[in-house]
Structures are given as structure tokens and as C-alpha cells.
């Protein structure tokens, strides 16, 4: 029996649910060169910003048990450099190509999306909404109003699928997922990193220059799993899980909770073969359990009423 690993996200068909989380995998010369990314269901680029930005001064990453904190600060060479340097490598990939776009307001997101649409070669956009909003002291993804406006503007700017990447640092991700769905998102990514910090007990100072950073990695997976479960119950659009996946069984866990696809992020730093191994592992899982279509697992752990067809 050859299992069908394909999944649908809106109009897109992915050959399997495995893709990198934005900011954890590069294309072209940034690809570590250990396996062909055509094996993956999709590739998601690191977030681009319209204006070039350097990002934060080191120390940018702090290890913590089973995870890491990051305060990298969204470095970007800017839109023009992205179109010239990244897009050609991205366009050439033989899998679904997702450009992650960041911005301080709706105009910046729209500027980037329009320019990329004109250039062509990208299949979908993931909106990095955990960007600070100009003027307001809040991340776009942590204000339902701002999120709705940005997602709606992006929806109008392109006919291609738009995924809204949500922040987990809110009381109920489901509310924000509903806002994104209402604004026209084709899918939601649950979720970005959790707000966290660390203190050096010798210097008695916070370890990160920005004091707080985002925690990611296997330590947070149970938290994200619950947020996926919560969100899948609240929306009709697909949920892309992101947070702490390490192996194939983690993708199965997320699918069972209601996800349609799964991003692997921090684990790539530990094991850059993780995604390739996950795809193989999913095939083995299906063969072992007699699962003919992996997509049938989406929501299968939920009570029957919660399993909407996606």
C-alpha cells in the first residue's frame, strides 16, 4: 500500500504536510545542502521586510532545556534585495513556495505582496503578524483590530493564498483565528514563538539585549498543541501547526489535533535532516497503521462534532 501523504491548504495541494517554519531554513546557498527540499510539501522563507534592517545585536539566542529563546530582530536585506537574491532560488524549487512577509502596517505588507506577485514565482504568502505596529505599542497579531485590517488589505492585494501567522501570546488564539478567517485568510499558522526571558545569575542581568525573546523548540509543543486544538474548533479554514515538532510522530500529533500541515522550525538547527526524516516517518506511520490518506488524520483525535471537512 502506498499511502497518499498529500494535504490541501485552500486551493493548494502539498505533496505532504511538512514544511519549515519561517526563519529556520534558507534557500540557495543558505540551504544546508543535505537533501533536496523538493521532498517537502512546501518551503517557507524567512520573513522579508520592505526596508533593510540589521536585526538585534548579539546575544540573539539563548539555549534552555528542550528549547531556545531568540531575539534575532527580523534582519532583512529589504524587498529589492529579496527580489534579486532570494526569489530566483525560491522560484526554482520544485515544491510549493511560500514567501513570509513582515511589515509595520498594512501598506508595507501590501507593497511587498504586490511586488512579489508582479515578479511571480511564489505560490502563497505567510503573513508574519508578530511585527511591532508603527505608532501603536502592540504587535499586529496581538490586536484583533490591526490583524483584521492587515489581513484584509493583503487579501485585496493578491489572488494567491494568504496564511495568517498568529501570536500565541494572547488569551484565546481562536478569537484571532476567527478574525483572520473573517478578513479572508486561506489558513492560519499556529503559532509564532511564546514570549519568554532568561537572566544570567553571574552578571545578574537579562541574557537577551531586548530582555524578552521568543521561546521555541520541543519544550513548547504541548502549549502549541493545545492552541491548535482550540483553533481548529473555531475556524473552517486549515490550521498549519508550528511549534516544537521534532519527528514524524509530532506531525501526526498535530494533525490529530486538527492541523492540516505542520512546520518544523527550531529542530532544523539541531538536526537539519529532521524534515526529510519526518516525511519518511509519516510514510512509515501510514503503512504501519493502514492509513491510506494522511489527510484523513486531520482532527481524528477530536470528538466527532469538531471534525469539520477541510
Amino acid at each position, binding site marked *: 500500500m502506498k499511502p497518499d501523504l498529500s494535504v490541501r491548504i485552500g486551493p493548494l495541494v502539498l505533496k505532504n504536510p511538512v514544511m519549515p517554519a519561517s526563519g529556520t531554513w534558507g534557500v540557495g546557498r*543558505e540551504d544546508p545542502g543535505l537533501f533536496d527540499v523538493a521532498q517537502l510539501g512546501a518551503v517557507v522563507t524567512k520573513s522579508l521586510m520592505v526596508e533593510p534592517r540589521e536585526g538585534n545585536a548579539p546575544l540573539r539566542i539563548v539555549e534552555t532545556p528542550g528549547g531556545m529563546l531568540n531575539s534575532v530582530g527580523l534582519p532583512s536585506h529589504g524587498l529589492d534585495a529579496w527580489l534579486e537574491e532570494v526569489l530566483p532560488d525560491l522560484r526554482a524549487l520544485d515544491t510549493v513556495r511560500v514567501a513570509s512577509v513582515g511589515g509595520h502596517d498594512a501598506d508595507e505588507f501590501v507593497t511587498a505582496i504586490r511586488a512579489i506577485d508582479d515578479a511571480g514565482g511564489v505560490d502563497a504568502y505567510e503573513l508574519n503578524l508578530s511585527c511591532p505596529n508603527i505608532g501603536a505599542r502592540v504587535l499586529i497579531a496581538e490586536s484583533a483590530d490591526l490583524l483584521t485590517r492587515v489581513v484584509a488589505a493583503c487579501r485585496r492585494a493578491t489572488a494567491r493564498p494568504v496564511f495568517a501567522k498568529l501570536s500565541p501570546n494572547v488569551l484565546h488564539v481562536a478569537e484571532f483565528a476567527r478574525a483572520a478567517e473573517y478578513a479572508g485568510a486561506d489558513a492560519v499558522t499556529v503559532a509564532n514563538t511564546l514570549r519568554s526571558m532568561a537572566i544570567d545569575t553571574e552578571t545578574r542581568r537579562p541574557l537577551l539585549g531586548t530582555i524578552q525573546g521568543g521561546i521555541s523548540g520541543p519544550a513548547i509543543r504541548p502549549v502549541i498543541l493545545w492552541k491548535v486544538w482550540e483553533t481548529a474548533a473555531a475556524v473552517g479554514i486549515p490550521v498549519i501547526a508550528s511549534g516544537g515538532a521534532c519527528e514524524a510522530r509530532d506531525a501526526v500529533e498535530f494533525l490529530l489535533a486538527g492541523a492540516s500541515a505542520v512546520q518544523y522550525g527550531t529542530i532544523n538547527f539541531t538536526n537539519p535532516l529532521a524534515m526529510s526524516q519526518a516525511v519518511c516517518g509519516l510514510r512509515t506511520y501510514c503503512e504501519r497503521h493502514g492509513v491510506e490518506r494522511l489527510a484523513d488524520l486531520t482532527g481524528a483525535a477530536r470528538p466527532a462534532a469538531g471534525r469539520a471537512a477541510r
Partner: protein
Amino acid sequence: MSSVTRPGRLLREFEVVEQQRRGGGYLNLIVRAPDLVAASSPGHFAMLRAWPGWDPLLPRPFSFARLDRDSGTCEFLYRVVGRGTGLLARLEGGDRVTVLAPLGEPFPVPDRGRIALVGRGLGIAPLIAVAELAAARGLAVDAYLSAREGANVPGMEALQPICERLFIQSDDRAGGPRLVTAHLEAQLAATRYDVAYTCGSHRLGRDLQRLQAEHRFAAYVSLETHMACGFGACKACVWPMRRGGPAAPRAASHAATTAGGGDVHWVRTCLEGPVFPLERVIYES
């Protein structure tokens, strides 16, 4: 279209040949990895992991101290500074270690001439590999080494037979100049170096920048930074650099380029380095 762009790079388990415990708390891990050694050059580094599961989460970066194509072994010189190195220190012959390598850009080594190595403590490690390659090519090699203890200078056994001149500056010796670059400065009055190499100590790196500017020789540094992934994805390892000339000059026969117009940017040491033209590196925080 294949996205594979790094022929020779591997992520695999290899067998430990031996873990040597040396004086001064230094350890030398010898690994059998013929494919890896054949694909690697001085200046490359590896990410090592030798424990199951996700805690510690991240692998640890180590420069190749030695690359022996005859025996197919490579060596990593280090000391225990935390949990990761503590776990690596427990490895013995026959154990397995997971290695991702070769990573980074290697040192340019010319075909002829005379080179100077400048290093302190474990900064000497990648310079040992440079010395062995240079000697094999028939270059003259002089080394300027410093360490806390004169009796425990990393790389001494490997460098002594290779170097024409070997200057040691140790903290536990009374008197004499405090920076080993003072010996180099004195030698520069009589000797011309085609290239100088350094790694580790920022004080030595800064002083070598001064000598480079005065005497106009090419110089390269291998920068040691915190790393999470080692291959360019996480962007943890950035260092401030002056923008170099067109595609940072790699030919060791170039005279050192002067620093650009003061335009500073963060550069990933794992991807564009860890080897950089010395004049581009900004040492002040």
C-alpha cells in the same frame, strides 16, 4: 531541480578513535571520518552532538584542529565550558558522535612564501591545521603562541616539528612582553610575511590589525561566536564587519585591503566566515 548545493557536506554519526586528556584541562577528540576529512580544509568547522534527545537542544561548534587524510581522522581541541562540552568530554574510543561538516569558509593558504600564526590558548586549534597544510605545500611557518601556562600550550607537539620559528608567551613566566604579538612586531623588522592567521583572543586580533596596517600583509581571522545551527539559518552568530571590497579578497597574495567607508553590518560568521579578512573585523562592542 535539486536544491543540494554543498557536495561533500555530511550529517552523520562517526566513530570516536580516542579522547586524549591533556594538561591544562585541554581535551583532544579524535574522530574517524575519511569522507569528511577529504572534503574539509583548515578553517572549516563542525557541529557536534553526542547525546540523545533534545536537552541540550543545540549542537556545539568546533574548528578542525587537524585533518589527517592518511589516517582519515580529524581532531577537535577543546575544554569543558558547559553542559555540551561536558557531555562530549565523556566520549571514549568506540563511542559515536554526530557530526555536521564541513561548515563555513576555509582559510586561504598560498602555494609559497612564509606565513605567521598568532594565537592564544584554544585559538591556536584551527591554526594547527593551517600549519600542517602550509608545511605540506613547502611554505615556511612561524608561530607566535600564548597561553596561561608555559607547560600547556595547545598544539605544541604538532607545531614544533613544522615551525621554523616558534615563540611562546605564557602568563606564568615572569617578565618579558605581555602580548605575543610583540615578538611578531620585533621579527617584522627583519622578516616579511605573506599571510598571517589568527583566531580567538580579541586582544591579539586587534594588535595584529595594527601590525597589518603598519606592515601591509594579508591576514585572516577565524572568529569564535555563539552558534545555534552552524549553517546560516538561525542568524545567532552575527559579528559586526566593515563592508569589504568586492567579494572579500580570498587570494593570499593580495595586499591587505583598507577598510571600507566605515559602513558596518552584521555578518553571519558560520556562512560567510568563520574566516574573514582581518581588516574587516570590528572588535569593539
